[in-house]
């Protein structure tokens, strides 16, 4: 059984307009995503801003109510559970946010912040919770004395460590990490990544690691899903997706990463344009539209679902974004 199983998840936000504020459209932030995470594994989600990756994370931990589709955690369907019903289950899955300055309450001491999930779940006595907070602080590499200080007394990296301590306080099985290191300097970023990898080894937590930095995602993930405009366009083992990307968007993303070697011969394909608006997305292939691809017209109304083109390597059957050989293979699988 998979720890997390998401099927055809959709998260649409209504747009209101006119005098009566009736619904005139929808932002299709997440538009039909299916994925799985096994126990103790990491799934990386990459994509540019506005592709819906954070919305996906929030929907999975049910901070929002999905429009359609289903989410199963440990086999239980949590898609439409009420917040009250879901609360005891939250021990199993936690979320950690991007900005450590904004996600920690400045009026609470670090000890209170870390112990809050324990308090909400009514675990232990106040004395025990404080001891546990100290234990967790030490586990994430901070001094026990931090327990009575406030989060603003710490640097960005240390605040992110506090965030990690809070997220693991209930020993969750799944942790959704939304851009956990993008606000940090490189030398501190690697400290936090090392810590996350250690914790995974020790506690067997599964991560859903959302980030825009491909090198970071590749480093920490077992599998990587590439998102474009609310959809997954490619999903494969982390090493394979970087060595043998099939989808044109994945290729473009990889070639856009600056290479830290001045002697490297760079043949980066410079993409034109930007990600289209999810309010009024192109009718056919979203990336084909950005590429101004000659086959774009063919894709209007075409079924471009993900297919397993090679064992464990899934890609959208999109004629604009695959080589001819890959596309005919993919088409036969639909």
């Amino acid at each position, binding site marked *: 059984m998979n720890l997390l199983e998401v099927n055809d998840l959709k998260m649409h936000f209504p747009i209101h307009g006119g005098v009566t504020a009736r619904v005139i459209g929808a932002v299709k932030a997440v538009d039909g995503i299916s994925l799985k995470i096994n126990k103790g594994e990491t799934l990386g989600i990459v994509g*540019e*801003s506005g592709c819906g990756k954070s919305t996906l994370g929030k929907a999975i931990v049910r901070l929002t109510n999905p429009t359609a589709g289903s989410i199963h955690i440990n086999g239980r369907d949590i898609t439409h559970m009420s917040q009250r019903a879901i609360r005891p289950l939250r021990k199993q899955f936690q979320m950690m946010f991007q900005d450590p300055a904004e996600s920690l309450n400045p009026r609470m001491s670090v000890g209170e912040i870390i112990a809050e999930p324990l308090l909400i779940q009514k675990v232990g006595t106040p004395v025990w919770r404080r001891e546990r907070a100290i234990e967790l602080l030490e586990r994430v590499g901070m001094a026990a004395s931090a327990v009575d200080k406030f989060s603003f007394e710490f*640097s*960005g*990296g*240390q605040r992110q460590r506090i965030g990690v301590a809070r997220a693991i306080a209930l020993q969750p099985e799944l942790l959704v990490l939304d851009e956990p290191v993008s606000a940090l*300097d*490189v*030398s*501190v*970023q*690697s*400290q936090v*990544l*090392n810590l996350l*990898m250690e914790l995974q080894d020790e506690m067997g937590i599964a991560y859903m690691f959302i980030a*825009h*930095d*491909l*090198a*970071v995602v*590749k*480093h*920490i*993930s077992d599998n990587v899903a590439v998102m474009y405009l609310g959809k997954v366009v490619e999903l494969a083992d*982390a*090493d394979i997706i*970087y060595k043998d990307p099939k989808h044109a968007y994945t290729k*473009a*993303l*990889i*070639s*856009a*990463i*600056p*290479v*830290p*070697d*001045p*002697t*490297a011969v*760079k043949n*980066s394909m*410079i*993409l*034109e344009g*930007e*990600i289209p608006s999810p309010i009024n997305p192109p009718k056919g292939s979203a990336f084909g539209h950005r590429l101004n691809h000659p086959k774009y017209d063919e894709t209007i109304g075409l079924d471009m679902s993900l297919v397993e083109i090679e064992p464990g390597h899934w890609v959208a059957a999109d004629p604009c974004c695959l080589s001819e050989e890959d596309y005919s293979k993919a088409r036969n699988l639909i």
Partner: protein
Amino acid sequence: MSEDVLIVKNLQTAFDTESGRLTAVDGVSFTVPAGKTVGIVGESGCGKSVTAMSIIQLLPQPSGVITGGEVIFKGKNLIGVDDETLYNIRGNEIGVIFQEPMTALNPVHRIGKQLSESLILHKGLSKKDAWKESIELLEMVGIPSPEMRVSEYPHQLSGGMRQRVVIAIALACKPDLIIADEPTTALDVTVQAQILDLLNTLQKENGSSVILITHDLGVIAETCDEVVVMYAGRVVEQAPVLNIFKTPQHAYTKGLLASMTKLETPRKSVLGTIPNMVAGIADFVAGCRFCQRMEREGESLLVRPEFIEVAKDHWVEACPQCTDRA
């Protein structure tokens, strides 16, 4: 060999705060040769942006003060000159690209008006001609349908487009020096690649020199000729880009390079780190500040290490504990 466009000598910049005067930039020196790109790299709070803002003297007032040193631009020291002279240089001979394109643009003025401003001021164009030239500038930075975009407001553009507008403003008067302060940090990788490519092309066309401030060594490797590595308000190493990547001398530079996550690093391997963090600005020691971070003790904390040339054009702050030089 062409001359240097900019020479910064022993620049000192401080801020007056409630807890006294704090020195953010402590004796920084470097030169920018004509037509070259010099990268300044370092972590947040190392003084790289303050260095740039000191060059054009746009420090927060009244707290920011330049307490010493020289900034020689095209043979003339800019420190201590009157405001009039500075007005004529800023936006005209030195163009600035700021990090956050949303705050760098005025939300209540049309794009065209903001572009025309420096053209009218420095080149003496009429409003009408400036507007026309603005359209050409937008076209140059690759904005589609510029004649329409020119009369739009900043909020109508995407992040990448706004950054292109900021670049167009910086380049409007064909400056000799462009200061780009984290020009791509707020952007997505694919847009970052577009913007870096654009900067590169425009620099070649105009022959301007560029100071590129960034924390991303990948961006440095792809765009710069020379690199200045800053740590805690000082330059710890300065060299041609190849030397920085192939033969780094200072432990901080080495640490930065080792902390980077690269595509080639084996998956889930332990990444290199630099232990601890930068000390607070009020606690900086007089001696080697990287030794301070490494919690070393002794003489190296008391005396500032000399800045010596170890190979041609390769300079390093020669702390005996942070480099191999005794």
